[in-house]
């Protein structure tokens, strides 16, 4: 059991520490975030998030700023600037990957600003919609500071489809060509063509995103290709088919 003297010593020490520590000894760093493009295109040009960390008071200790990349955003590169930028060191995802940007400064001098510019892009095979980036900064003994910026991602996907027929003897060929001219991918497309009467499927040779995505239904004679997405560029399915009448005819000729 502690003596009354010991308890008194703890009480006085605690009160003294409360006075010492409750003042403005700790500085609070604050954070802001802006983006260079409020309407980026999926698969389109890169844009930037600019995270600004401001310390208007005395030197701040153990400053940590974090920016989780929004869903679908891919990190490209990062730059640190500003009067307080020299104190910061950042870890980030690999280029082309999603992940966390995390910047740390053991000390941030008084009345300085650090600017972290994060260049990113949105992956092409994502639907349009709102994405929110949230930056967060903490510093020792100070309240957390957060800031958000919203972006409306645009999926500008469009494609054209053309067919070229080549008649053969027993087997004929239909070349189904799809051209995606946009930077965004077409999500869950259905590309189809109807083969002539009494056609059966011999095989399909496909390229790009049409590989292993096409099937044939003999009653409707429809070749239907359903990839998860069609990326920018040309995709071709060469459909080799026969006609029962041809086979019958060839067999008796």
């Amino acid at each position, binding site marked *: 059991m502690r003596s009354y003297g010991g308890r008194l010593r703890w009480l006085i020490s605690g009160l003294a*520490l409360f006075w010492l520590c409750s003042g403005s*000894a700790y500085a609070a760093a604050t954070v802001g975030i802006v983006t260079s493009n409020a309407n980026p295109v999926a698969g389109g040009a890169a844009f930037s998030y600019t995270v600004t960390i401001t310390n208007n008071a005395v030197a701040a200790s*153990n400053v940590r700023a*974090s920016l989780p*990349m929004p869903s679908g955003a891919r990190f490209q590169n990062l730059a640190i600037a500003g009067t307080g930028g020299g104190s910061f060191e950042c870890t980030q995802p690999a280029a082309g990957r999603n992940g966390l940007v*995390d910047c740390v400064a053991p000390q941030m001098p008084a009345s300085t600003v650090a600017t972290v510019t994060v260049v990113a892009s949105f992956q092409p095979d994502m639907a349009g919609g709102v994405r929110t980036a949230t930056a967060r900064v903490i510093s020792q003994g100070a309240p957390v500071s957060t800031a958000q910026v919203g972006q409306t991602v645009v999926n500008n996907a469009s494609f054209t489809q053309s067919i070229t027929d080549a008649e053969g003897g027993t087997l004929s060929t239909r070349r189904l060509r799809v051209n995606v001219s946009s930077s965004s991918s077409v999500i869950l497309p259905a590309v189809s063509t109807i083969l002539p009467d009494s056609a*059966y499927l011999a095989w399909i040779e496909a390229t790009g995103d049409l590989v292993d995505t096409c099937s044939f239904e003999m009653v409707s004679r429809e070749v239907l290709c359903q990839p998860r997405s069609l990326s920018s560029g040309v995709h071709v399915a060469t459909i080799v088919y026969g006609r029962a009448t041809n086979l019958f005819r060839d067999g008796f000729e």
Partner: protein
Amino acid sequence: MPRSIIRGRAILCVFGLALLSAGAQSAPTVAIITSNSTPVVGGAAFSFTITVNNPDAIAANNLRVSLPLPPSMLFQNLAISGTGGGGFDCTHPGQAENGLILCEASALAAGASAVITIVASVDPVNSSGVRTAAARLVVGTTATTATIQSNLQVNAPLSVTISGPSSATRGERVSYLLLINNVGDSTAINATFSAILPVGFSHFSAQGTGALANTCDYTGSTRTLTCSSIAVPKGFSKLTWTAEIAASAPTGGALVSFGINNAGTGTIAVGSSSTITTVN
């Protein structure tokens, strides 16, 4: 307030805290719970909530909380709250990636708590079973651990259908469409399917999508097309199977069947299907 005074107070504060901490040491606790103890493989996201609590009368210093996501679990997002949450900073994997969540704080005030909520999901290609998530708190040189178990559930009900022409003539080739539908969220692993042609029919070609792309073999002696030990993802997998009808094939109704031999980690909703082509 002049900076010299602020600096002096800070130094005395640190010195005083050091003196006090020499006589008393805080012992924060860690706990973990989950919003769903039976998550579906490939299904809806769920959360782990880690609570770090400092019940003592003195602040805790240099806290590190870690949670390695169990195998096959994928990070979605993270939020920090609680009276002491503002002091924590976390690193984590990229979205939809497995990895380590690591949260650090230089101090957690007396009586304060921090709540770290991690949203995750389960990769659809997985078996059922128990996964254990272990949150570890290190304060100075003292470590404490809290664990929780998740019992993964596979949801992959499979059904099959086959369609083809209602009639054909001997000597013709006909195409059948074989279709597997997985209406669950999980991938069925190690499933086996087979289709059989009637007498007088023979294999000409097979063209597949999804689980049936380049996964099937034809055995002429039994006229059987077998797709063995395949992984069937959510949605449709299709196979266009073209057969040749021999000139000597029997006339009348010819039955072509398609069925599930083994659903693997999935379940059977509709196990077989057949179609009849009348041969003229």
